[in-house]
């Protein structure tokens, strides 16, 4: 290493490896840090500890079973994986989804988005060390999981969407319960703000820390709330609307930098809170206009064969742009199902982002990126 006279007081770099299973990491991955005192000089990231061979498993199963695997893509926000696969297959087969099924899908997707963002709050609160807010948020997330259970019978791996619609119709009183939960979360959001968002301790840990510059976002191709918190206005729901999002009125919140500067940890956190309230707006609109009719397209019969062809579907998942390239050769099993997970770009940005921050801020910055290592590893 080259040294000049100004570097005389600089200390030697120490290397520190944080293994795959560690309490300060949001998910299994391996970080190789070289530290200059408390400052991180450089960082290397290694993932793959959650590689399940998902895409190979998709190729080995019949089309119907692939839905169950797509929902294991990102278990925390399971619906998005199913949704992007179904959209792709529907584009190949030219299946028209009934309006009722679309509404149910939107309700599920937005509930999943809220649930995933609540889990994000849990992770960041854990990184900061605020125990109480974890339990409050988990208490409220349980209500959403109850809704999933009421509709689909499962809490996490829903396996509910089908090609051309959904698996079952909504039960009586489900829509009212959705509205109830929305109202409850709206009230609880104030509680979170009082307890955590504008808490002195949390602000000190999060404001001005881990600022994500726009250049890095463009270089890595980051999408989703992380990019929007830094001011990059991109949302698939607005740009290429799918599933009737163009008929709904909602805004895309952008980072404003109330706590510190635009794009820091606190800004990313606040943006998630705003997205939750926007999702609740969407839910309220959809709940008013659930039409009567079929919940699955009549074209899709029991032994439905996907015709040969290919499609590329893209949706906005809770972490960013989720794409899916589906290739069918007209046989029983898919020829190729390839996912474009948003977290891959977030993971790529980590080494550059953590350069120059202090070691004690590392868990907070990592948690604030909302890394879905499961979907990045596939």
């Amino acid at each position, binding site marked *: 290493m080259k040294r000049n006279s100004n570097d005389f007081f600089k200390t030697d770099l120490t290397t520190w490896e944080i293994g795959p299973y560690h309490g300060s990491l949001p998910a299994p991955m391996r970080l190789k840090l070289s530290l200059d005192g408390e400052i991180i000089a450089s960082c290397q990231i290694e993932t793959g500890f959650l590689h399940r061979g998902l895409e190979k498993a998709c190729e080995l199963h019949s089309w119907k079973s692939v839905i169950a695997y797509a929902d294991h893509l990102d278990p925390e926000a399971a619906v998005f994986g199913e949704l992007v696969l179904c959209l792709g297959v529907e584009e190949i087969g030219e299946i028209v989804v009934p309006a009722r099924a679309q509404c149910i899908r939107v309700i599920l997707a937005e509930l999943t988005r809220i649930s995933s963002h609540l889990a994000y709050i849990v992770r960041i609160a854990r990184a900061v060390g605020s125990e109480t807010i974890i339990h*409050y948020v988990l*208490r409220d997330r349980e209500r959403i999981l109850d809704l999933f259970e009421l509709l689909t019978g499962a809490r996490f791996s829903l396996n509910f969407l089908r090609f051309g619609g959904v698996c079952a119709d909504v039960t009586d009183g489900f829509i009212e319960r959705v509205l109830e939960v929305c109202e409850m979360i709206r009230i609880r959001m104030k509680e979170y703000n009082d307890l955590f968002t504008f808490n002195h301790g949390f602000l*000190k840990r999060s404001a001005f820390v881990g600022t994500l510059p726009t250049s890095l976002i463009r270089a890595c191709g980051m999408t989703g709330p992380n990019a929007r918190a830094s001011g990059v206005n991109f949302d698939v729901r607005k740009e290429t609307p799918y599933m009737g999002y163009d008929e709904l009125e909602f805004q895309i919140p952008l980072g404003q930098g109330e706590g*510190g500067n635009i794009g820091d940890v606190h800004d990313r956190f606040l943006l998630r809170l705003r997205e939750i309230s926007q999702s609740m707006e969407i839910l309220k609109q959809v709940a008013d206009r659930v039409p009567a009719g079929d919940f699955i397209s009549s074209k899709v019969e029991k032994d439905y064969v996907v015709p040969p062809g290919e499609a590329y579907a893209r949706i906005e998942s809770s972490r960013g742009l989720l794409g899916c390239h589906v290739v069918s050769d007209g046989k029983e099993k898919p020829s190729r199902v390839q996912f474009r997970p948003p977290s891959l770009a977030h993971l790529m940005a980590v080494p550059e982002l953590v350069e120059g921050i202090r070691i004690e801020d590392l868990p907070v910055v990592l948690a604030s990126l909302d890394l879905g290592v499961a979907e990045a590893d596939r």
Partner: protein
Amino acid sequence: MNTGNDQISWIVSWCRAIGLTPSNTPPWLYALLALLCTFCFVVVPSGAFISYLDRKLSADLQARVGPNRAGPGGLFQPFADILKLLQKDTQKQWGWRENFWLSVHTMALYSTLAVLPLGSVALLVDTEMSAFLPFWSALVLGLGTMLLGLSQESVPGWFGGIRVAAQTLAGSFPALVALLCVGIRAGGFRWSVLANSQGFSPWSWAVFANPFLLVAFFIFVMSGLVLLAIAPLDGGLSMSDIHGGGIFPSFRTEAELISFWEILRIFPLVGNHCGSFSGCLAAPQRLYSWTSET
């Protein structure tokens, strides 16, 4: 009747105050018994109960139940934890660093025992023990921590060790000077001499004997704050250093439970200081003589 010159007189007076009379049984038995009973029936159960309360209360704050399976309402949870920890294997890799760490801790423990102002009987060594002993042990602790920091083989560890050592020195010397003032007035530096030189009423306390001693008392308290790094005087371990990141000026929502608990740490410290600067140590004896006269 005690004359006041007896070194263990004040323990006996404590015993008398709870109804025991010194017969032929040696007084050290009383002292040991009292220590043992206090430890077994007061210290350990209250510590366990407080940890149980802590877990239950924090669970209640977090909308949970807390431990409720071990014993009635989970009351025996701390005992289960302790018994489980006793059954765990020891760590396999035991190097020189761990030995060093253990020896430093042993020294600290020993000096705590030595500092307890119980007179000559209940102590491990002859305790015509001077009031300088705590400072000696504090210096040992500071030196030990510094050596431990130096053995970390990293520059932050180095500076951490030196920081602690500097803090210890910065706290010790003013306290030493303050203690010198009290000792010169009392005519000796043993705890017993210090205690017996002061009367029961505040008018005979060392603090109010003259203005210099009043100043010395405040210096003593301040240096204690520095030694223990309690909130206002924790310059060596300053918060912005530990928390890192930027300093944020505009939001001031100061509802931090942590700082409240840090304030509570002051009370035992202040009690300790008042003990050596006022007549508290001699209080039972004075009380006894006062009740027996009337």
